[in-house]
């Protein structure tokens, strides 16, 4: 049975994870098409959606306004290959792990953005089109 990852700190991430768990059918993953945008309203500015392509590549199909503001630009339409090498490798490993484990993972990291040292927490949740194949990742990130 899929559970909330241990150590998740940010309250909005915990509530998003609880929402995602509620959407999980027994033994399966939530359908992306069952996700109601109005139900996601409180998290929208801090959400992004990664499309998982058949060849194993990832591209951004939604990029929340708060994330675009915090990181200086929207990454909508870009692939992981468009990112700097250091970020690309970390994110690819993280997304591939979620696809393999078929369960949420979270990570806390500290970096300098716009000259300011910041700590962020991320949560990655798998979504499916048929209940089995993972073809989208719902990702949320909040500054701690």
């Amino acid at each position, binding site marked *: 049975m899929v559970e909330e990852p241990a150590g998740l700190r940010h309250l909005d991430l915990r509530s998003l994870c609880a929402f995602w768990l509620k959407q999980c059918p027994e033994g399966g993953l939530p359908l*992306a*098409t069952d*996700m*109601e*945008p*109005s139900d*996601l*309203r409180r998290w*929208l*500015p801090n*959400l992004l*959606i990664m*499309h998982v392509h058949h060849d194993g590549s990832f591209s*951004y*199909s*939604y990029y*929340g*306004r708060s994330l675009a503001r915090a990181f200086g630009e*929207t*990454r*909508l*339409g*870009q692939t992981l290959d468009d990112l700097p090498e250091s970020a690309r490798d970390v994110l690819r490993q993280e997304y591939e792990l979620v696809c393999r484990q078929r369960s949420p993972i979270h990570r806390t990291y500290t970096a300098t953005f716009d000259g300011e040292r910041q700590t962020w927490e991320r949560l990655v949740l798998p*979504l499916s*089109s048929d209940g089995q194949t993972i073809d*989208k990742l719902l990702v949320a990130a909040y500054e701690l």
Partner: protein
Amino acid sequence: MKPSIPYRPAYTEKSRITTVDEFNIWCALNDQPFNLIQHVWPDGMIEWDLEINSGAPDADIIYGTGQDNGTMAVISAFAFLAGYEWAMEQHAAVLDELDDDGDNSDGKNQDPLRNVPA
């Protein structure tokens, strides 16, 4: 008519989507390659446009909503998408009929919209 497409068609939406961000994430969740983006005209007027393949080299405006209000732009975009889906289904049905009619090897019956992304 039962939809033959694997996503949730725009014409079945129950209008719970009221903001541009909700529309855009709906598109992402339903494999629709569209985004509402804000366009500022040279005279300063704002218009929400429907863009296809945003961020990709072939990104393009596919429909201008004529709206500066986000909620009205969402309504216009859904109306456009419903018509787009209907037209694509009709087009697919016509192609099926042409296929059933026989040899297509001379290219005369090739899909004229084959390069239009969906």
